[in-house]
């Protein structure tokens, strides 16, 4: 049985301007020890998905309107707040984007790490401190014992992120959700943090969800990838298959829009720009949400009338589109346009 099974998750924000359908149809499953990368641009709903799993969405104005999140056999959406609190930090841990504001500036690092352990594991102060030192060493912070007594402002961005990881790992969670863990970091620090996460995932046998907008990061860190657009998963596949043969027009366009670091004729060439902007989530396009920007959408097909379903186009590769790449190629070969 998969560790985490998300089925048809929908989270809506009820605001004065209308109902923002931030997450509107997300399905995926995650096995123990594997890493899922959720990629998308701003407004795609990736962060809200993570927060929905943890039950951390602000209620009001948000609400999970349908769907289920089954973690280790229990549906998290059906649990009470106190039951969720028992799970957060212990079985599922989360690290956030901005290391500068994720830690409490008025508490020592040591306190912030031990507090999680005392809450969930009921260990003694001494035991907790010892484990905190071990954790800091695991995340490669030098002079761990001394550093326990420092306040966050004495740590730089990259080190704070490592402290966050240490806190997240304190109770040996089964699942770690990392929301844009390296976006605010320099590239050299990012490389170290990603290496660290991989190392820890293996040593702790954790499952991981990495949320990011950076295709390079998921190429490096993920086993499977889910591409999100306008609140929905539009493509889901293993990492090699996704990059080798992307199916959804958005995924293709996204990969084409990425500036490459290696290759020929980069300076002279143009990047594939996706025209327009992501849709307004209060009033999204009625059928396929990518249709207004899609080069293959046609007045005569179903793109504007019927919302496409997520279907398995080959083993392990799911796509939500009426015009996936392999069908386009077949069509072009098969019959004159």
């Amino acid at each position, binding site marked *: 049985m998969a560790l985490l099974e998300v089925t048809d998750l929908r989270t809506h924000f009820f605001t004065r301007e209308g109902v923002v359908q931030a997450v509107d149809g997300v399905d995926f499953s995650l096995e123990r020890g594997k890493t899922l990368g959720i990629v998308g641009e701003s407004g795609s709903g990736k962060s809200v998905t993570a927060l929905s799993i943890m039950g951390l969405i602000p209620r009001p104005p948000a609400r999970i309107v349908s769907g289920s999140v089954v973690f280790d056999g229990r549906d998290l959406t059906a649990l009470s707040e106190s039951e969720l609190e028992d799970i957060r930090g212990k079985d599922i841990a989360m690290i956030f984007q901005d290391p500068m504001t994720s830690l409490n500036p008025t508490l020592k690092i040591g306190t912030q790490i031990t507090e999680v352990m005392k809450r969930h594991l009921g260990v003694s102060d001494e035991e907790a401190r010892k484990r905190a030192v071990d954790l800091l060493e695991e995340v490669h912070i030098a002079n761990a014992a001394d550093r326990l007594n420092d306040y966050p402002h004495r740590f730089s961005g990259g080190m704070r992120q490592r402290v966050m990881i240490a806190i997240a790992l304190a109770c040996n969670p089964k699942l770690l959700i990392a929301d844009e863990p390296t976006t605010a970091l320099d590239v050299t620090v990012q490389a170290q943090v990603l290496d660290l996460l991989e190392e820890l995932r293996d040593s702790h046998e954790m499952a991981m969800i990495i949320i990011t907008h950076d295709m390079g990061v998921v190429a*490096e860190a993920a086993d499977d990838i889910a591409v999100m657009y306008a609140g929905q998963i539009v493509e889901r596949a293993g990492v090699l298959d996704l990059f080798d043969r992307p199916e959804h027009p958005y995924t293709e366009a996204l990969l084409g829009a990425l*500036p490459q670091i290696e290759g020929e004729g980069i300076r002279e060439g143009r990047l594939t720009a996706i025209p327009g902007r992501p849709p307004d989530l209060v009033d999204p396009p009625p059928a396929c949400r990518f249709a207004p920007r899609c080069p293959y959408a046609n007045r005569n097909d179903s793109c504007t009338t019927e919302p496409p379903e997520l279907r398995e186009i080959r083993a392990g590769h799911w796509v939500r589109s009426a015009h996936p790449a392999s069908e386009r190629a077949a069509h072009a070969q098969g019959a004159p346009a």
Partner: protein
Amino acid sequence: MTSNGALLQVEDLTKHFPVKKGILIERTVGHVKAVDGVSFEIREGETLGLVGESGSGKSTTGYCILQLLKPTSGSIRFQGVELTGLAREELRRTRRDMQIVFQDPYSSLDPRMTVGNIVAEPLEVHGIGTRRSRRETVRRLLDTVGFDPNFTNRYPHEFSGGQRQRIGIARALALNPKLIVCDEPVSALDVSIQAQILNLLKDLQRDFGLTYLFIAHDLAVVRAVSDRIAVMNRGRLVEIGDAEQVYTNPQDEYTKALLAAVPVPDPRKMKERKRERRKFAHTLAEAAESADAATLEPSQ
């Protein structure tokens, strides 16, 4: 214009920020050497990409060149004229030829001014044209950057990040500059919008014969627009050369480590690259430490 076609010549540029301590009476206890002896040239019509991590001094270098910050020492020759120590009125006139596009689309436009006024401001400041002719110029500029000229009466907050960057670019073009310093112009934008703006910048360069100093931390973005690359680390220029050369055959250890650290959207390559990275583990750790340390020091 100078004899060898260099539009901009920077020699031994330094910028030190004093570190002050004390409550009642502030004493200067030391200096942060944000820029520590940087020299390079930019030829007319080319793009020099200035790359570095946070604390490398790349943005400070850009601001010093534009004289938005006063350099501590060094020479900056623009169109053959030495900028440091230039009389105020002369500098003001020279500003028409060198402009800037900022990183943050939200703080780079005055929220209380209409789009039209924002783009017209450079023209107003230098007394160019009449009100009517300025209106026309503004419409033309906005059209050039792909922004609908019918929205000149709107306010910046009504537009998205990408649209605001276009407004900023239109403003930078208003005075017909020769050199534009682009300070992380796409860092705050989504990938798909980023591509639009990068394409736009390339087109504008071709159409108007612009010269760019393109400052960024994203190596892939810089690669897409630059002819030559300069790599900065902790205030020093560690490598400079043809873009192709620097990316495929870097000479400096830091540059090599930096390039090794960049994730590429290709999972197979990533496996190899991760192995490569281990070779540079030491340099990377050092670089990470100093990048880390930089954030603890006073910002520039």
